[in-house]
């Protein structure tokens, strides 16, 4: 082996893709056991989008009022519109308290009650004040604390690396190939165990709260490796996206008592969810908002409504919600202390993703057969913990708890299993992607991405119908063809943003097709997936998960994976 080849070949027990909460928590667990753990991330770890989570992390600590694990479990089941697997939720609520106390012991600066305990606030769909928070920067402080813990425990970091292919053969994961963004060149990561923790896929939409990095790379890589995706049609639209920008204004605002009002100044949630009002789950609030807008009661008849914080008063806004105040001021020149803030629904969270079991092992069929050595956790995974709609604050808890669980199982796996051989010519698939873009077709990535995003926002939003979705499918097919002719201007090795964005676009186009196919197939309305042409939930036919593969260029679906339901939590009508 030549020196350069050696530099680009890494043999590491556990390789973790993604440096958000799930990835870092898993890496920490593996590293503490004495095994080698490497995190591969396309941005610096503290730039990961877990840091964008504002409101809190859910756990029934009962520090502020009564609460119980059973209540957390039931709220999550009901919030999911009964599509979540209840064995997963049971594991989740049982581990949630430990996760939060562990974070506190690591030094997370949680906001405090007067008697010095972790403070908690109400959040949408939760029946008790369950969101443990640090002002409105909860994700930020959790992410930074975990990163610092990883530094202490000598986790290896490959910052600014873009994963281009998974080395999976004969249902065994062997490692992966990644592009070094900083210097250029492909690297082989040979691993006993691989974790995919690449976050969400909101960048397929024009109006989104997601970061530029949230291009669903993990789900696209899995699809490319011949493995299935689950429940991809379920995408959460957050009701309080900053108008036009889509940037998140935390649900913490409503947790602290903010109103949502229409052009007539009415708190319209009284029509749609009289008991919970603004603190109904996100799917319901977003749908109500969009209904008000569609029926002409948006502000000045336009496509937005108001988030009103004014009655909370200056002190509460600045002490509890300083980031929200800053965002409205910086981006819209609106001072939330004196004026209501224009908002609209924004693509926010991916409930669907890479199917996995309660041990976070990636599964490859409805029967639950696993891919040996391949794991997934966090937003990119579909366990399914959130079902058809996630409750606020359950995502940070999901990422951290199942990140830890992934770390535990990966450690066990690494101790029992040797490195599986790499497949022949491991670099070829990744090299082909780069060569094609450098080959220099005339199409450019930016207009293709823009067309995809604009149309996804138009057709795959809060309300969906068959005609729109068939049109969307045709648009995606056409864009996929145009993508074959994309070339990049930048032919350089170092920090080639042009190349990275073109590679990410291939991923967006790939999984977007699965989202549309899944949404077309699911002829019912459940949670965040609402079909105007099938407005009712249909438990008879659709109390099941969708699995989708790409085979010979076509999306193939399987609906035989039933939802895990306990006798005591049978589906009921969902009212708030």
């Amino acid at each position, binding site marked *: 082996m030549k020196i350069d080849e050696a530099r680009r070949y890494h043999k590491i027990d556990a390789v973790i893709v993604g440096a958000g909460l799930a990835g870092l928590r898993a890496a920490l667990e593996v590293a503490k056991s004495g095994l080698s753990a490497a995190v591969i991330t396309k*941005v*610096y770890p*503290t*730039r*990961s*989008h877990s*840091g*964008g989570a504002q409101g809190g992390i859910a756990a029934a*600590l009962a520090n502020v009022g009564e609460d119980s694990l059973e209540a957390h479990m039931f709220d999550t089941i009901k919030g999911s519109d009964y599509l979540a697997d209840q064995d997963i939720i049971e594991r989740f609520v049982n581990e949630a308290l430990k996760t*939060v*106390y562990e974070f*506190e*012991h*690591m*030094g997370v*600066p*949680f*906001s*405090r*009650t*007067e*008697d*010095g*305990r*972790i403070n908690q606030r109400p959040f949408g769909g939760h029946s008790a004040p369950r969101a443990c928070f*640090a*002002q409105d*920067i909860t994700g*930020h*402080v959790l992410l*930074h*604390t975990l990163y*610092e*813990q990883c*530094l*202490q425990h000598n986790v290896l970091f490959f910052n600014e690396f873009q994963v281009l292919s998974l080395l999976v053969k004969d249902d065994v994961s062997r490692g992966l190939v990644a592009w070094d963004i*900083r210097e250029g060149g492909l690297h082989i990561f040979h691993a006993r165990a691989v974790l995919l923790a690449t976050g969400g896929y909101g960048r397929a939409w024009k109006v989104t*709260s997601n*970061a*530029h*990095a949230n291009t669903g790379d993990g789900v696209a890589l899995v699809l490319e490796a011949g493995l299935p995706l689950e429940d991809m049609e379920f995408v959460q639209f957050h009701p309080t996206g900053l108008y036009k*920008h889509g*940037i*998140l204004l935390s649900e913490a605002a409503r947790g602290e008592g903010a109103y949502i009002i229409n052009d007539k100044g009415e708190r319209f949630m009284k029509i749609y969810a009289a008991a919970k009002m603004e603190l109904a789950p996100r799917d319901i609030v977003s749908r109500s908002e969009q209904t008000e807008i569609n029926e002409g009661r948006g502000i000045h008849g336009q496509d937005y409504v108001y988030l009103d914080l004014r009655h909370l008063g200056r002190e509460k806004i600045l002490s509890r919600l300083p*980031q929200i105040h800053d*965002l409205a001021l*910086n*981006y819209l020149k609106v001072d939330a202390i004196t004026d209501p803030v224009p908002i609209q629904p924004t693509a926010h969270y991916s409930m669907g993703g890479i199917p996995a079991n309660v041990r976070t092992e990636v599964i490859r069929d409805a029967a639950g057969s696993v891919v040996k050595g391949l794991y997934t956790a966090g937003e990119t995974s579909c366990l399914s913990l959130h079902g058809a709609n996630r409750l606020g604050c359950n995502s940070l808890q999901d990422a951290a708890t199942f990140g830890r669980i992934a770390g535990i199982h990966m450690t066990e796996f690494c101790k029992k299993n040797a490195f599986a051989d790499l497949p022949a010519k491991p670099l070829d698939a990744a090299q082909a992607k780069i060569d094609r873009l450098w080959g220099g077709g005339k199409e*450019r990535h*930016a207009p293709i991405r823009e067309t995809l995003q604009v149309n996804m926002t138009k057709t795959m939003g809060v309300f969906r119908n068959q005609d729109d979705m068939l049109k969307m499918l045709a648009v995606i097919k056409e864009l996929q063809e145009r993508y074959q002719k994309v070339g*990049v*201007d*930048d032919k*350089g*090795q*170092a*920090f*080639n*943003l*042009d190349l990275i964005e073109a590679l990410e676009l291939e991923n967006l186009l790939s999984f977007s097709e699965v989202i549309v196919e899944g949404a077309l197939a699911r002829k019912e309305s459940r949670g965040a997936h609402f079909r105007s042409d099938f407005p009712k939930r249909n438990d008879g036919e659709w109390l099941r998960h969708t699995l989708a593969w790409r085979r010979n260029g076509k999306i193939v679906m399987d609906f035989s994976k039933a939802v895990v339901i306990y006798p005591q939590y049978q589906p009921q009508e969902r009212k708030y």
Partner: protein
Amino acid sequence: MAKIDINVKILRYQPAKDEKPHWQDFAISVEDESTVLDVLNEIHWQHDGTLAYRRSCRSSICGSCAMKVNGRNVLACETPIHRFGTKLKIEPLSGFEILKDLVVDLEPFFAKLKRIRPYLILDKPLPDKEFVQSPQQLEQIGESTLCILCAACSAACPSSWPNSDYLGPAALLKAYRFVFDSRDDGADQRLEIVNDKNGVWRCHTIFNCMEACPKKIKITEYLSRLKVKVVENSL
């Protein structure tokens, strides 16, 4: 919203072909409500695909897009262009090696963070639940935990430019954050690390870091408190 014509001057450096950085002008038309990041995206997507810069969250929390615009260190994503009129001059953060265009080498910056042992050091047993910390105790460190590690402070610090070994404002602020955390038992170790000519004493209270901080953290004040603590601790 209306379109306006602006002139953007960007300091370019492509390592494969340029010996040194040089200015390039772009005359473009953008929405008047655009941010600096919108302008860079417009150039990158519509005019010159070879332009390189870092960005991710678009909402002032990830810290990727700190750069110098018309002489001030800002986050490109949260900075509206109307602040600068129709002429923008964009360059990478000072004091770091330029990798390409607006992308600088942040490895030394993150390596300094590790030097101050940025994690809770405990010699007491863990409680069953949380450590008790009063709101007043939290208040001591609350603002310092806002730091997004964007490096705008270090890039603005004249003490940092000529001394690559100087810990710099961000790592020292992190040291403050742990030394003043009521739960931490590692103050002695950390105070010893920062009690050095390349530690707190290299801070000359110039206040540039504070002015550059997009999160408006009173960095200089916290570093001064850290200095006092170092002195108290060595008495």
